[in-house]
């Protein structure tokens, strides 16, 4: 592919050009209100890859001192890496439901790992299916309640063992409602195989693949060949961490029971194992000749503490838990591929983004905002502030709380007696100095509290 800025700077085959012209003419004749790029390219294929507990900085393209992620690096170098991507609730089930529905947990109802998925929830897969897409959901579903008949999904491959968490090795699958054994021992490879099978089908329609990995969730098990790859690495754990931190203050529930260093090394090796499988998907897209018109989005469902604030796990509104990797590659749309984007984006933005890319109207019930303007224009304005929410999830020792995060500040309000916390993220990125009770905090708090109230009422800032 030729280097250049944007779609028109890139090399095109005659067949591709004729296809585009033909597609555009059909679309215009049909009176469809496609966005400009959709008119030019036709409806894109969509591949959304979601990982579990992959924190935003555990990629080599983010300068991580240990982990190697060449596939994600490649994706970032060919697309846009959002450096300020967040989840609105840092917990698997609520966050996954937010990716699917474009809604906050308070709206879609999956507030923790106990509250069930509502059958009335509308996913972007359902809307894409109605618009003629071939769709597949492959991988971790992990919503409380019974496994649903997921509307708008042609192929639904998931697992229910261990309450839907699945297992790294020999994980039995539920394939369109029927139990099947895993054909490959390692779950990430198995799910990738299944995804490639779906991609390889000949079809007249565009496709949307939702590939949702178990990795890199606890128990952080890499395949045997990667088991000890980071054993000699200097881990750079935070100064407040120690080996047994997961045994303190009720954190034993996270299941991270071994010494922190051992668990972290396994986590990083599991990230590298995941990266290899993502590489297989990218390879397929590039070799299929559909790269130009295929969107690949990679994201994590929440972050993870590795000793910061003396926490292991996620849930809290601190940066380590709420920031996620979020990379979009779409050569037909992205202006200036290989660039980072600093605007704040959210997991609830995924659904509206994909719908807009497909030329579909975004339902008003979706609370996210399409990222298309940010992908087109590096200087497009992002949101000023957004709301984080966490709901009680027994027996995990985290109080219900809400927070407002602006580009430079964060105010956290807890339910119960715990006092508020306010941080200057520019000067104190590790959130170690609570400004409440200081003159600076007193000055900052009113505006942030007012913002949080507005956001609670549904405002978009």
């Amino acid at each position: 592919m030729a280097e250049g800025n944007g779609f028109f700077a890139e090399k095109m085959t005659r067949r591709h050009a004729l296809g585009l012209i033909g597609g555009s003419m059909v679309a215009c004749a049909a009176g469809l209100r496609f966005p400009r790029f959709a008119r030019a390219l036709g409806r894109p294929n969509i591949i959304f890859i979601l990982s579990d507990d992959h924190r935003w900085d555990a990629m080599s393209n983010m300068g991580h001192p240990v982990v190697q992620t060449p596939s994600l690096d490649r994706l970032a170098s060919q697309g846009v890496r959002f450096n300020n991507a967040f989840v609105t609730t840092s917990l698997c089930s609520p966050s996954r439901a937010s990716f699917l529905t474009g809604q906050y947990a308070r709206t879609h109802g999956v507030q923790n790992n106990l509250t069930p998925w509502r059958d009335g929830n509308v996913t972007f897969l359902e809307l894409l299916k109605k618009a003629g897409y071939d769709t597949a959901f492959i991988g971790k579903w992990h919503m409380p309640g019974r496994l649903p008949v997921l509307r708008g999904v042609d192929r639904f491959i998931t697992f229910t063992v261990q309450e839907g968490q699945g297992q790294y090795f020999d994980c039995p699958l539920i394939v369109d409602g029927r139990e099947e054994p895993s054909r490959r021992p390692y779950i990430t490879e198995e799910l990738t195989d299944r995804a490639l099978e779906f991609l390889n089908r000949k079809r007249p329609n565009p496709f949307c693949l939702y590939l949702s990995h178990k990795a890199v969730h606890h128990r952080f098990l890499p395949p045997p060949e990667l088991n000890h790859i980071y054993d000699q690495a200097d881990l750079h754990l935070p100064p407040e961490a120690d080996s047994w931190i997961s045994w303190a203050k009720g954190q034993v529930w996270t299941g991270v029971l071994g010494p922190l260093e051992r668990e972290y090394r396994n986590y990083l090796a599991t990230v590298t194992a995941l990266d290899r499988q993502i590489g297989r998907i990218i390879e397929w897209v590039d070799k299929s000749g559909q790269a130009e018109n295929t969107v690949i989005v990679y994201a994590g469902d929440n972050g993870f503490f590795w000793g910061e604030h003396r926490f292991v796990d996620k849930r809290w509104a601190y940066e380590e838990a709420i920031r996620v990797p979020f990379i979009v590659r779409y050569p037909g749309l992205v202006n200036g591929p290989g660039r980072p984007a600093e605007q704040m984006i959210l997991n609830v933005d995924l659904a509206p983004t994909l719908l807009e890319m497909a030329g579909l109207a975004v339902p008003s019930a979706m609370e996210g905002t399409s990222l298309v303007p940010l992908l087109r224009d590096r200087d497009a304005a992002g949101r000023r502030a957004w709301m984080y929410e966490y709901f009680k999830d027994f027996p995990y020792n985290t109080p219900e709380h809400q927070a407002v995060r602006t580009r430079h500040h964060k105010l956290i309000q807890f339910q119960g007696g715990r006092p508020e916390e306010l941080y200057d993220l520019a000067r104190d990125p590790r959130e170690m100095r609570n400004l409440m009770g200081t003159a600076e905090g007193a000055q900052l708090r009113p505006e942030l509290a007012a913002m949080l109230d507005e956001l609670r009422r549904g405002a978009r800032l």
Partner: protein
Amino acid sequence: MTIATAEIIRRSLWQRAIKPALTLLIVVVIAIAFYNHFWRLGLPALQRIAGHLFGLTVFFSVGCGALVVYRAARFRGASPTERICACLVTPVLYTASEVLRVREFFSWGESLYFGLSPGFQLILLANFGCMGLAEMLCRLSLRRKGAVIRVVTPLPLAALLLLPVGVYVIVIWGFGVHWFYVYQQGYKALFY
């Protein structure tokens, strides 16, 4: 009266039961305080060492403290009931403190149920296991001194066996996941 019990001088309640229990409790309180707050001293070079030292002290004192307390109480003439009570002081108070701590997040009912969770079940079983082991070790020690006493009898053996059974069910079975979900089903039945 057997030779074994006759050889042991019955000390005061303070000496035979309260003091051993309190000693362990103080060790645990100090270790927890240092474990949780040592990092605030800003000594990164010592943080890992302190983590190991205080973290493991807490872990073994709460989980296996009965091994020491039981022996001390036994050789100071404490009755079986007194020995058991002395051994349970630390695990019970530790659990109670955790129940009170999580009141910040949960209702009273949920907090009490939290106190019945697998981690605390394991602590309790481990301590009973340690009591069984300690009783048999004490008997062995007495027999070496000439007492006519059977080392292995059903009750301490059963107590000792609680430990591997607990470890298997709570920790090894599905790497802790299965028993945790049984516990969670109980939570759903009670509170949802």
